[in-house]
């Protein structure tokens, strides 16, 4: 969530969640199941407890992402700008720097 806020700041110069290209899916609260989804230029990168998955945007497969009722809140991600790795910041992506629990890394 802090990663979403940091990304939102990169986009809007204020604190907001609406334009972030990274999203923590936490709609399956009762099952303690969540993941992190990142929208890239051509891919949707999905990190879940099962492992990492990369889906090609436009292949139709990404429509599977968020098909469940509990994931409805994740759907707007597909409409947002793709990640630019905070290219205007020499320190690199803000989401990495602001994750309070070091859950995100970049290869």
């Amino acid at each position: 969530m802090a990663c979403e806020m940091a990304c939102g700041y990169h986009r809007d110069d204020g604190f907001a969640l609406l334009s972030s290209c990274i999203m923590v899916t936490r709609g399956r609260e009762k099952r303690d199941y969540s993941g992190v989804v990142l929208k890239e230029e051509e891919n949707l990168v999905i990190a879940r407890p099962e492992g990492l998955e990369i889906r090609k945007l436009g292949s139709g497969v990404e429509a599977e992402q968020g098909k469940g009722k509990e994931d409805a809140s994740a759907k707007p991600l597909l409409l947002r700008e793709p990640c630019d790795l905070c290219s205007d910041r020499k320190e690199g992506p803000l989401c990495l720097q602001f994750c309070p629990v070091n859950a995100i890394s970049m290869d």
Partner: protein
Amino acid sequence: MEYLSTNKIAIVDLATSKVTDQEVDEDLVKERIGGAGITTALYEQYQDEDPIVLGTGLLTGTLAPASALGMITAKSPLTGKVCHAPLTLYAGLELKFSGFDYVVIKGKPPKPVYLWIHDGVADINDAKDVWGKDVWTSTDTIRELMGDSLIQVLSVGKAGESESDFAQVCINYWASGDRWGFGKLFGQKKLKLVALRGMSLLEVSNAEGFVNQCKELLSALKTGAFAEKKGIAEIAVAIGEGDTPKWLAPLVHRHQSCFNTPFPSNTFVFLDEDPKLLKESEKKEPGFLITDVYGLLGFKKLGLSAADACGLLRECAKYGIDAVAVSELSQKAGKKKPDEIKKSFSGLKGTLENVGKGKFSPWSPPKPIFANFGSSQDAQWWERRQAVAYIFGIHPIFALMSPELSEEKLIELANLGAGLGFTSETLNKVIADISK
């Protein structure tokens, strides 16, 4: 109020079913900063109407580390004092982004209602779909009605509806830090729940300065005393219950942080599922998120297994009753079997010894956790540290493990964010005002 604020206060009159908006007066912020400083002022303004005030801290919902906190301010049915209960997880964040920094709820409606606060609008709705339902079903129902699983729900269960002294306002499916019986106030006002969601934008006075300062603070915090620790059992160890990790470990699925909080103070246990499962459970309700260390320890001290204790915590949350009160009164009554304890929820009565003495919820342990603050760390220190957390919107348990989040640093952040020239004198005055 231009910065770090949605600039709106909702005044909700349940008696007339009218909602009016007020601006957040910049002079009020200059004088009271935010959070408990302003919820207390709003409570005093409407005190003749026995209000329930929801609020957020000045830094809530920002990149300031641990800026997760919202709060309920009201007169406790248990103590008769105006007190503050923490709203953690994502409730504080979602309140701020709902478009209102503060919500004053007054009056009593002719029939049960719920509040739907979203995108700068506060609607009073008929609660016929949720009244009579438990906390879990109510949360599910509201999220399905609105089609959004990220809605944060502050609700009461049957304990609140029946106006039990020990009724708790729960957050989504889980226990909260409401140890004041605020659930009873919801019940008295026939207010079943408050649903929160929004997409606001908070502007920042000196944005780059604020963000850089947040980054520096977070870096310093990550090397703090809590760095290698996780979960609620570690908090239990810090308050002298050293065998808790071993007792709880077989059930632990994962630890969870509240919004932007570096220490994961909540622990999810699987009760009807393999805790080592690394995929989504096929079971709809496999476990429970433990958010209250004292509720957990209360049942542990009855000699229950971890599974029975956590099962009872889940039942307490569904019923919307404070697990600390249940465990204490069960112990007094000599009840040690889960079934008989569960049966006692309805009509639970008695006098609690472990009730909060001050203004801030005893959900936060009464001393530093893991860390050394280097000064006198007595009850007065604790009350001030909690006041600071509730004014700025910092997670109140995390505040006890993070000397790096000093008053000076928080004032500096507040000034970068809001540009209003707060000083330590301002903070001292607000703390004195809310401590009266």
